[in-house]
């Protein structure tokens, strides 16, 4: 990773897993933060979207054919707010669900010459 400081947009991407139909548009628009698994379903990098990618993230959200993505502002948890992580499972999965494949680095800085399309090996198998 480069030592360049990445500014945080204060928002993260949430996905409605039931609606998502593996169209893959999101990963094409935002390869820095969304990868596709072997069945074509998105794996989203954990954490907030870096500020310099927020516009593109908005495009990815707007272009999902089934509107399965949302950008959510991360607010400081209010004291009385309930339910989140059931303690027994919390160790395994935080409620905010940073979707992430083992080894997926979080949000790399955007390369200057970003490939317009993903390489064939990353494309969805059909």
């Amino acid at each position, binding site marked *: 990773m480069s030592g360049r400081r990445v500014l945080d947009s204060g928002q993260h991407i949430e996905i409605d897993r*039931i609606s998502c139909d593996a169209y893959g548009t999101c990963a094409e628009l935002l390869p820095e933060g969304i990868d596709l698994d072997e*069945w074509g*379903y998105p*794996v989203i990098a954990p954490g907030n979207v870096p500020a310099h990618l927020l516009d593109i993230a908005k495009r990815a959200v707007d272009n999902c054919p089934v509107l399965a993505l949302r950008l959510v502002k991360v607010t400081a948890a209010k004291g*009385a707010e309930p*339910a989140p992580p*059931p303690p*027994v499972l919390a160790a*395994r999965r935080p409620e905010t669900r940073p979707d992430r494949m083992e080894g997926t680095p979080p949000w790399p800085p955007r390369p200057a010459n970003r490939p317009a399309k993903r390489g064939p090996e990353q494309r969805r198998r059909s």
Partner: protein
Amino acid sequence: MTARLLSGPSTAAGAESLAGHRARLGDLPGRTDRAHLIGMIDAAGLLGRGGAGFPVGRKWASVAGRAKGDAVVLANGAEGEPLAHKDRVLMASRPHLVLDGLELAAEAVGARRTVLYVGSEHVDARIALERALAERAANRTSPLPRVPTMLVTPPVSYIAGEESAAVHFVNIGDPRPTTVPPRPYEKGVGGRPTLVQNVESLAHVALIARYGADWYREAGRAETCGTALVTVTGGARPGVLEIDLGTTVGELAEWAGVSASVGSPVLLGGYFGTIISGAEAWRQPLDPVLLRRAGAAFGAGVVAFLGDEACGVTTTARIMDYMAGSSAAQCGPCVFGLRAIADASARIATGQPRQDDLSRLRGWSQSITGRGACRMPDGTTALLASSLRVYDADWTSHQHHRRCAMRRGARVGA
């Protein structure tokens, strides 16, 4: 082993009558201040018994806070976990404890309706609860206001007990999870804030309201106070019993007449749980906090002794197939991921592995986690990961040599 929920007549004697229940435990204390009741549950430190172990008092406070007197309480007695029996035994033998807890919850969160959500296969439980409701209607003694109760019986399925699936089924007859948020405590049955609480959790509340938080905290031998119902299988005397939290797995093995040598693996929690090696297991206290620290979970209170005869690979493959078949088939990573896991496990177990099956299983045990609308993929991959760890040598031997160590090195498959 302290009996609280199960003190009184034997569970084999069937449902305790309202008269018997009142003679033994007395009536509920009169109308108490809502905040007082919630404070008492909080002070007791009661954790939910449906699997996730969330603090009951905190959940009540959040529902009460947003309900404005029009909440719904849903008592979750779906018990779809194939290895668990404790909820159905509780409902069938102590229906009035569950109904007391339901009334108290309704009072505390400000509910105008309650739902008894009972898996349709639990026939004895359903009959006991129906009869208990009739007894209470005919002989109203509770000091709490009457709140209508609807009995709903979802079809047999692992997923129907998940809280958003339960709400979905009550609302429109579809027992599949929905996308959260909104979670049931925000928008549940009829769009109202809904408290979904396991039936055992509610039964504990019925006793805490009578005897207080300090009394509740007298039981328990490790970090977490109280007693819990557990389902023990795999020994000569399988069954449901009530233990002090903190009782060790070894003590349960003795109780259940487990003949396997000390050191055979144990499945804790249920199909969403963890397999731990016998070497660790025997001294492991059954305590939610200590289990979490050990990388396991109390889950639905299942303690299944797997024995040293059974092939762990085959056992795991069977569970994976069950889970893949139980997916509500809505989310891609769950539908395709669990099926892929089940198929690869079955190939390895039957001696027909593809070259990379085991390494792909290892990858999927990490990569599918957290990627469904509900925790189905998470629970399943957690169990798989623990099996890959505990039965490492067996998985490897099946994959690379097609040999099953359990059958004295016999080749598996054709």
